[in-house]
């Protein structure tokens, strides 16, 4: 796929031919645009090779696990972890191999998570799975901060997220993800990292749901609706903040999250006028999101609005108590409309 510089090169040649740009400016203009960082085949193969080597080593150790003394097993685990961290440190020296450093730190974060579990097993240390996962998440976070590693940051959020659901999720327990996600978002912003922006946005939505679950008995469905409103406000803030890709990613995810929470919040408790108000607001908001997505030329936002409006119409049909066959026909009609709209949108984009 051609990068921006390649596209600019083609356009420049055309503009020079048309006399719009002097030919003497061509090189200076191209030089002012930095080459996009690319992952070539050799780097990709090296990364895959390193990962497969790691898997082979793990399988070899697993096959001989029983004959290795406990202390030696523990030493082996720590040595593997330190070797990977050492390699990451080595390759980060001149800053020319950021992808390799990032990959190695992500692997180190996962090895450390495994090391926590294996240490518990080797020395029969009874532990709480939630605490183990959160500790592994904190360790991954430390590696992420130390090495500016977005991969380790994603691992940290994933481990803390798993920790949120390990153990009794329904019980009144602490919640970590809602605090970890904004830290991830801040780092994604500082490092301009797209993977971390995606992971932290999703983490914030899941973290919010986890917090709302704590107060489900007290707040009921209104908590979910309020959560949807909060995400909607965050989406608006992200949109206003900047045109940077990181902010756009936050915006996209929060729009989807806001619509989902708002929709789910209206399923259980609402009755009478509140139910009608919720459904009406659902349709209005979905329509607004479609308009916003088209205005901002953000396909994913438009898609969120289309999905929300289809879901809203279907829900209203169910509310009205239509038969399954009628509902199936309307679902099919909505699906066809959505497909046709998608086809037309794609056609326009290709022409543009």
């Amino acid at each position: 796929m051609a990068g921006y510089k390649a596209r600019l090169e083609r356009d420049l040649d055309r503009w020079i031919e048309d006399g719009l740009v002097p030919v003497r400016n061509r090189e200076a203009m191209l030089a002012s645009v930095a080459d996009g960082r690319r992952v070539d085949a050799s780097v990709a193969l090296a990364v895959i090779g390193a990962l497969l080597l790691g898997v082979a080593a793990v399988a070899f150790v697993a096959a001989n696990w029983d004959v290795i003394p406990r202390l030696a097993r523990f030493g082996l685990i720590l040595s593997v972890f330190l070797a990977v961290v050492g390699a990451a440190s080595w390759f980060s020296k001149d800053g020319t191999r950021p992808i390799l450093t990032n990959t190695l730190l992500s692997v180190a974060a996962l090895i450390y998570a495994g090391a926590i579990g294996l240490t518990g097993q080797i020395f029969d240390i009874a532990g709480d799975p939630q605490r183990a996962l959160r500790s592994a998440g904190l360790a991954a976070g430390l590696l992420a901060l130390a090495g500016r590693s977005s991969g380790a940051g994603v691992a940290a959020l994933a481990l803390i997220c798993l920790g949120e659901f390990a153990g009794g999720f329904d019980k009144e327990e602490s919640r970590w993800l809602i605090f970890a996600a904004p830290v991830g978002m801040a780092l994604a912003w500082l490092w301009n990292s797209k993977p971390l922006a995606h992971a932290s946005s999703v983490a914030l939505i899941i973290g919010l749901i986890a917090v709302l679950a704590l107060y489900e008995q007290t707040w009921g469905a209104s908590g979910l609706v309020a959560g949807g409103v909060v995400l909607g406000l965050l989406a608006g803030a992200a949109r206003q903040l900047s045109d940077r890709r990181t902010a756009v990613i936050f915006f996209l995810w929060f729009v989807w999250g806001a619509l989902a929470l708002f929709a789910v919040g209206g399923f259980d408790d609402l009755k009478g006028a509140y139910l009608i108000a919720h459904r009406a607001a659902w349709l209005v908001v979905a329509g607004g999101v479609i308009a916003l997505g088209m205005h901002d030329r953000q396909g994913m936002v438009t898609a969120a609005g289309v999905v929300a409006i289809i879901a809203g119409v279907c829900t209203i049909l169910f509310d009205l108590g239509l038969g399954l066959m009628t509902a199936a026909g309307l679902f099919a009609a909505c699906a066809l409309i959505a497909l046709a709209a998608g086809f037309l949108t794609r056609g326009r984009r290709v022409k543009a």
Partner: protein
Amino acid sequence: MIRRLPLRILGAGLLLVAVLVGLVIFESRARTAGREVVLAMEAVDPRSLLTGHYVSLRLTQGLPTGQRCPPRTQPISEGGWLALRATGGQHRFVGAAPTREAAKAFGGDVLVKGGVYCSRMAIGDAGAKAEAVTLDIGVDRFHAAQAEAEAMEKVLQRRVGDDAAPAFAVVSVGDDGRARLKGVILDGKRTDLSWW
């Protein structure tokens, strides 16, 4: 910034290793320093005892005549306390309470953090039912090499029925009330956890 990056990465790695080593040393010391308690254990289900290379432990003991089950199940997550009393070479459950102070009132000589639930167990050919309690003190498995784990499973299987082989979990209870597994006793043979 870039020049300090390798040192920062290495420093973080060493710090994490130190934390893990510290945890092992702390747990090992706490296990040695705690008060040793021997608790009866039984097989959960002979067919599903082994998952990987560990033996599942269930600390179930019948209650003597006259002692009633606790009125409600107390999950370990509630952070409650159990009172245990040494009787005939092992420790037996005497009561459960939400706080340490309340558990002291049962007159046990060891207080341990944990939960308890009540069950009925069959006794003798007639299948008479007696009340029993299962203790949840956070110790539910014993990791061992495959051959060792299979041998332990066989002994635990023989416990099913009247001709029960003696099987006990040896745990260390620290001042903080936390139980840590020290080893198991099967058929009179004690296997302790060690560094090796």
